[in-house]
């Protein structure tokens, strides 16, 4: 048996999974705290102000990481859903349970910081003809749908698989939705951040990169933490959980 296959079989064991995630959770937590502190301080205090937008552009250091994460989290939901449906791996379902509320929170935060940024920059909190605002709002609705569906189905296993189908259908539809809302004319400025193409000066771009990586680590920390809690919840009647905590939970 190859090491990959061994890992695969081990992933079927909630107990092993719970223990395995502990160092990851710690690592993500420390990395998130460090990177977000460095990136945010650097961006808010030391980076130069924008020559057009002045100090108000600094919200980019919060806004862009949240929006990137909002999209990445949905992508991971789709992948987890695929894994759950194809290989019936229960831990993929645990991951979906963990990701959805985080996705809702981070998308709301992305919309809010975008509105706060839009007010001084474009003179409006919200603009219906802007493709990226609208597609982020639709992303939020997709998260709400997943959340509602899981709440509505009483049987946990069916709920997981139903959410997996919905997540995959949503993931396939996201590019179509994005394209269709771009059909409208847009007043949004072009995408400000990409790893390959630097359109900002280095002093402004570097703290943003630090914060984006930091936000991924925060995501990792929240998700590993929530996944471990979910494993404990599901396994609360087993001997190993009771042993772990001395007595009954």
């Amino acid at each position, binding site marked *: 048996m190859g090491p990959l296959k061994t890992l695969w079989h081990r992933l079927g064991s909630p107990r092993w999974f719970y223990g395995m995630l502990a160092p990851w959770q710690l690592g993500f937590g420390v990395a998130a705290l460090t990177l977000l502190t460095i990136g945010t301080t650097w961006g808010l205090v030391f980076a130069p102000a924008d020559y057009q937008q002045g100090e108000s552009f600094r919200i980019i250091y919060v806004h862009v990481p949240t929006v990137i994460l909002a999209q990445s989290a949905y992508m991971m939901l789709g992948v987890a859903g695929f894994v759950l449906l194809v290989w019936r791996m229960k831990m993929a379902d645990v991951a979906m349970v963990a990701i959805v509320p985080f996705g809702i929170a981070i998308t709301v935060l992305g919309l809010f910081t975008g509105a706060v940024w839009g007010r001084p920059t474009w003179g409006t909190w919200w603009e219906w003809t802007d493709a990226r605002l609208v597609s982020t709002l639709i992303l939020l609705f997709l998260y709400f749908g997943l959340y509602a569906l899981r709440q509505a189905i009483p049987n946990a296993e069916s709920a997981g698989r139903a959410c997996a*189908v919905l997540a995959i259908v*949503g993931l396939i539809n996201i590019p179509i939705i994005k394209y*269709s809302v771009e059909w409208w004319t847009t007043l949004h400025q072009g995408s400000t951040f990409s790893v390959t193409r630097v359109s900002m000066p280095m002093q402004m771009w570097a703290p943003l990169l630090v914060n984006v990586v930091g936000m991924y680590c925060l995501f990792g920390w929240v998700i590993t933490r929530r996944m471990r809690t979910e494993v404990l919840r599901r396994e609360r009647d087993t001997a190993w959980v009771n042993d772990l905590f001395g007595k009954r939970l």
Partner: protein
Amino acid sequence: MMHLLSGQLSREFLLVSRVRTDVLNPLIFLLLSVTLFALALEGRPEILRVHAPAVLWTLVLLTNMLALDGVFRRDFDDGVLEQLFLQADAPWIAILGKLIVHWLVTGFAMVVCIPLFGLALYLPAEVLPVLMLALLLGTPTITCLGAIGAALTVGLRRGGAILALLVLPLLIPVLIFGVSAVNRVMDGEPALAELYWLAALSLASITSAPFAVGSALRISLEQ
């Protein structure tokens, strides 16, 4: 395979002919909501004409959500779906049959009736063909994606509200291209790009939805 499909089609048509309100209710609801809009906008022709494409497309989406809620319910409750998954080699063919008939009695029926509703909202007559064509190309997507949502929620006591919550975000492209096609023609421009998009979305969803509906129904049956 064709035998299964034709059997399913004739069964669905028989069911529809026995329960005619299934066909009439969505259309009456559509007419009723068009009336509500016309009254809410105080019957002013110049306002109604401008908003008619948006109003009609939104109402078509919402009416379809209502109609789709019941597409699998009866078969789910009386065990027909369970037998289908036990016996058929390819349940997706039977699902395709169900979707075809459902589309004919809701989506296509709306295509036939929409000129009346359009005229009621003072749409110029030369816009009506493109409105019909856009609906003809757009409603199959509504039925197919809606059926996935209906299959996921068929086991729930109150699936209707959730169905709309799950499916409407996915149907936003249909709304955008559909409304935009009609508006283009009202402005005297060609609407080919939008119509091609609607057709492409429909082809993609017709070919893939029966499989997604199949796995969703199987999940609903297991719970």
